[in-house]
């Protein structure tokens, strides 16, 4: 544990590069879809229902004659957006909570961590169902439902890392330099926790994509006419025997994205997390 964040010179992280490339592709497609898709992803053409792949519709059309490729592209943007917001939500609440608990300790510490345990015990899906019942379904609810579960995750990562950092000599040195606890948290703890948070964020991003897909699939997440991979799967379910392609496309999109993010997360962790490299030192 000699250096929590000693940058690695090694370029031999194939999973990092694979993951980064895959993620970059998805992000790029999502960005492109904001300004351009081959067809309007919401434009229906009843005469073109359930067409197979063609020059005009590369991946065919869905039950309303919409272009599947365009929907999948636009779906990337929405899935990423939901996950990103959910992570921002989780970080915005979780990181200060974890920092605070670690720096203060005592009863507050205990209470904060018990609360996060409790949140963990509530199955995410049930929370999403209840949120839907309370506020109606929609992308925002999906974000909050997923975000709520990101809070304890980030709180714990921050808490754990901050707790061990707090006893490190350089923090003591900073204290001896007359810095307040708040300043120490901002100047030393946070920057050192950051790499871990980035790794965790990558992992949560992939979990968020999966969760969004599951919620939208259950009709609890993104609502029409906004296209989303989970919704496309929901739509495809009754057409499984007729047009399995409709279930295959969004499913593979999810797998590709999540795989990319996981590889990226693994690679980043190998690069940044000292625990796995301790033995090489």
């Amino acid at each position, binding site marked *: 544990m*000699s*250096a*929590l*964040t*000693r*940058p690695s010179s090694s370029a031999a992280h194939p999973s990092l590069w694979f993951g980064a490339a895959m993620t970059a592709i998805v992000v790029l497609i999502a960005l492109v879809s904001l300004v351009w898709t081959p067809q309007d992803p919401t434009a229906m053409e009843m005469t073109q229902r359930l067409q197979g792949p063609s020059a005009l519709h590369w991946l065919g059309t869905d039950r309303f004659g919409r272009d599947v490729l365009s929907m999948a592209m636009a779906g990337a943007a929405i899935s990423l957006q939901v996950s990103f917001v959910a992570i921002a939500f989780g970080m915005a609440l979780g990181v200060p909570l974890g920092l605070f608990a670690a720096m203060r300790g005592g009863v507050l510490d205990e209470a904060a961590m018990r609360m996060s345990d409790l949140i963990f015990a509530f199955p995410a899906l049930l929370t999403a169902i209840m949120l839907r019942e309370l506020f109606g379904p929609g992308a925002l609810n999906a974000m909050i439902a997923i975000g709520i579960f990101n809070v304890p995750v980030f709180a714990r990562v921050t808490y754990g890392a901050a707790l061990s950092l707090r006893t*490190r*000599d*350089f923090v*003591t*040195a*900073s*204290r*001896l*330099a*007359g*810095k307040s606890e708040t300043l120490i948290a901002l*100047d*030393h703890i946070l*920057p*050192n926790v950051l790499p871990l948070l980035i790794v965790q964020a990558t992992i949560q991003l992939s979990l968020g994509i999966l969760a969004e897909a599951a919620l939208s699939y259950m009709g609890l997440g993104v609502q029409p006419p906004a296209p989303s991979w989970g919704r496309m799967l929901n739509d495809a379910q009754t057409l499984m025997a007729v047009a399995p392609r409709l279930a295959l496309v969004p499913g593979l999109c999810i797998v590709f994205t999540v795989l990319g993010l996981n590889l990226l997360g693994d690679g980043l962790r190998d690069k940044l997390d000292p625990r796995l490299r301790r033995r090489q030192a």
Partner: protein
Amino acid sequence: MTLLVLDDLVATLDGAALLRGVNLRVAQGEIVGLVGESGSGKSMTALAIMQLLPERTASTGQILFGGRDLTQTAEAAMCAIRGRDIGLIFQEPMTALNPLKTVGDQIAESFMLHEGLAYAEALDKTRAAMDRVGLADIPATRYPHELSGGQRQRIVIAMAIACRPKLIIADEPTSALDVTTQAQILDLLRSITRESGAALLLISHDLAVVASMADRIAVMKDGRIVEEGATRSFFGAMRDPYAHALYEASVHRPARQPMMNKTAPFFVAENCTRLYRKPSLFRADPQPLRAVDHVSLALSPGESVGLVGESGSGKSTLARALLGLDPLDQGTLTLDGVVLDPARKQDRLRLRRKVQLVFQDPYSSFDPRRTIGWSMTEALGHLTEPVSESDKARRVAALLEQVGLAPDFAGRFPHEMSGGQRQRAAIARALMTDPELIVLDEPVSALDVSIRARILDLLADLQAQHSVTYLFITHDLTLLRAVTDRTLVMQKGKIVEEGPTARLLDEPQHPYTQALVAASPDLPAHVAGLQSDV
């Protein structure tokens, strides 16, 4: 008769050379000391003998053990040799034992494995083995976490000697232990090898330890043996410059002016008590541990005071209290005649302006994500008036120069520097606010011997320049003698003896001090003894 021959042993891992041709002989019943600094390849040599080198390690050369080339021995046969014919003792008693198994079971495993005993019989022999290593009063059903470090190391030794091997390899067996424990463990190793007739390959970074134990000494550097010879003639006949330097550094005493005219103390701690309470859910711990128990000390300008004690003696807790890092349960701190209450922020800042700290571990004392310059100037503006960026840069450059570092080190990150460089930077940081007292918490114990000597010189120079007071916290009596005027001996939270260092070490009064002095290997004295023998 020769038991072990290493013949031009070469090992490489992923293109990096670990061993570059090691030649070494160990005779039956002989104790050979293998000395080297970190990275010299001494541990790799041990693993090579055991044929436990990391996977993908390529090696050439021969390892003849009792005439059999171990490099050509099949893995199954090697398993029969390990533990039966060669026993290995590791450095870290904390991690060398499986935490989930009782110590008895772990020792018994050897008997069951090599002597084909049933569990019950193996347990009987285990009892005997534990008695042999001085653990007669420890039940075999204990788990490792229930034992102290020294006890665990005895368990590891019991395991290594269980089947009465012909060769015992001990890799830094006492580095993680306190001085008195170290002496006991070394005694145990010596008596066991003598009694069983086994050979011992003792690997250490500490020339003093090796000199006191070994029949023969070999010095290793960069994967090679650079100097070798019988202990009695070794120190007189060193030809290799590195071996010589190593010896010099080990016995180095920085040139320093002893304090002559002692003035009135500027820093006084009186009756300091610090309690340690076990956290309890329901009520206050009725009998809190007194980590620091009514300790008083007074420091005068320019003097160098040693604080010695073993781990758990309370010396680090005392240091933290003196620095105002932890509150005092009792007692007062007086700085320049003013009584300070560390619970008050203003007083804390005042205290820290005058009292600074240099840490033991140079690797963790700098924030890995900040440049050295940033870390050095952290205190400016908090403990002092606000300082302009250009002034900051100027002061950093000046201090870096004083500690022997180029000014461009200010822009470097900690991982871009060696341990010695970091420790220099840490000293420079401590000087940033012109303190009157610097607490040095084992400032050189994490450094290799050769670097250690240079840091000690630097500290002596700086003291002369800045007329700053040092409070040296250490467990190393040789070091104390070299760098301090006065010494306080701490045991179980109390100062048990204090006095001028030379007097205290030469004529210890308190039984604890006497034990400490007796247990500490003293290389110069030992070498002097050897040479007078010749």
